[in-house]
């Protein structure tokens, strides 16, 4: 379980997180919705320890990540992984090398085993035969899938997705959503998806949380979430899909 307690983070004069509290249950997929600039991606970066909060605590099970030193933090986050908004593939490496990166750094598998795991991960995301291509040769959707392969190859227990469908056409976005669900079913991991794509949220979520001005103001199962009558939620849903009968979709 991941527990976020009273998290504050500011950049200069701009206060982004304002006492954010959140509990993410083991094995669930929690989608965090919210307008741009409300600190959704910042929250993921705090969970992973990429940035330190100004105050507040983040627990992974009983381990307080925010109090760990650098070396201990790197040990603690070995079982976590993140899909970045712009994929963040290493552009000096091939797709295969990108996918093998974690295993080469942290495992004692033989080259042959790593190679077979890489091929398996690439085939899981539908990128067979691309292991020798450079990231610059891939389309946006393929880059996202390659980044997902790099993530699932080491089977992390916690998966963080930062805007996984942003900038993709609807069909590719749906493929990525399917892959998130498939990955969840295969790895039984705890997943946190940050997005403002309602379709994506309803497709992948077990629960949905709404981040408003740096705080979680609502959290509910997706069935309950679309029935919330609060103008904040209704506005968000209405403006995302103007005529949609959300839950039936």
């Amino acid at each position, binding site marked *: 379980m991941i527990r976020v307690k009273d998290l504050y983070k500011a950049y200069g004069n701009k206060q982004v997180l304002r006492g954010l509290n959140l509990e993410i249950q083991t094995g669930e997929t929690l989608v965090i919705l919210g307008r741009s600039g409300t600190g959704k991606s910042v929250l993921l*970066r705090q969970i*992973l*320890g*990429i940035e330190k909060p100004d105050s507040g605590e983040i627990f992974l099970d009983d381990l307080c990540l925010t109090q760990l030193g*650098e*070396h201990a933090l*790197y*040990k603690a*986050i*070995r079982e*976590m*992984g*993140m899909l*970045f*908004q*712009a994929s*963040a*593939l*290493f*552009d*000096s490496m091939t797709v295969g090398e990108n996918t093998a*990166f*974690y295993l080469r*750094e*942290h495992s004692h598998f033989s080259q042959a085993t790593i190679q077979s795991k890489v091929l398996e991960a690439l085939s899981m995301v539908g990128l067979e035969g691309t292991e020798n291509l450079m990231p610059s040769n891939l389309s946006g959707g393929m880059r996202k899938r390659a980044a997902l392969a790099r993530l699932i190859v*080491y089977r992390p227990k916690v998966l*963080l997705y930062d805007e996984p469908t942003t900038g993709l056409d609807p069909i590719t976005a749906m493929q990525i959503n399917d892959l998130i669900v498939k990955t969840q079913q295969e790895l039984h991991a705890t997943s946190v998806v940050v997005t403002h794509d309602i379709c994506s949220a309803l497709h992948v979520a077990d629960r949905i949380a709404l981040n408003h001005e740096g705080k979680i103001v609502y959290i509910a199962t997706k069935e309950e979430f679309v029935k919330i009558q609060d103008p904040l939620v209704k506005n968000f849903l209405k403006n995302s899909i103007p005529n949609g009968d959300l839950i039936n979709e």
Partner: protein
Amino acid sequence: MDFYFYKVFDSFVGVGLWGILMARTFWATLKRPPSWNLILDQLYNIGVLSLPVVAITGFSTGLVLAAQSFYQLGDKGLASATGLLVGKSMLTEIGPVLTAFMVTGRVGSSMTAVLGTMQVTEQVDALRSMAVNPLRYLVAPRIIGCLTMLPVLTIFSAVVGVYGGYLISVNVFGMTKQGYFDPIPSNVTYFDIWTGIIKALCFGFIISTISCYKGMTTRGGAAGVGKSTTNSVVICYSYILVINFILTVGLNVMNLIFIERFGKVS
């Protein structure tokens, strides 16, 4: 007035942050050293791939030094000091500084651009997300590469420079091989060699740490990468010139004190 105050203040903050980054890199490297493959990559990139440009610079500088020495000293009956002048200059001053300049242009700028691009495209964050310390993975191998290869390149540049001076002195100015080379062994001391090596080590440290610091602190997309790269080259050049002066004076003073106490070693 405020503008200049903030500029100076920013510079001090920058030096502080640079110090913190280097201390963290040192600590991370002590905890778990970078792999040999990463270090070998950097040794090849910094050392082997810089050989042509360093050779051209050293050779042409040797030619110019020898020609100038011959023309300036010849009419005073000191043409026989040409080889010595080229050797000493290449080893203690021009070799280390020009090599450092070449490496800054070829390697330092590329370090900042690569690390800066990785920073703004979240590749550095991706490393962290996979529990890989970017200071150990990206910065430490570059510092080790520069510290190792700068002295090698400096000595190489000096040797090529002396050879260039020899070619022009013998083939154009009619000096004999012995006339050019004989004064060198008896006058070039261990102090000169150590001066060249110590300067190269300091320059290697300056180039790698400033370039990596500027790269790792890049913000603001492509424009930010360009700005960081320009800044890092300008700062490296400035520091190399200032540190070169300090080292020249400092090492010579130390040498004089040493000779006074223990007598001449060479």
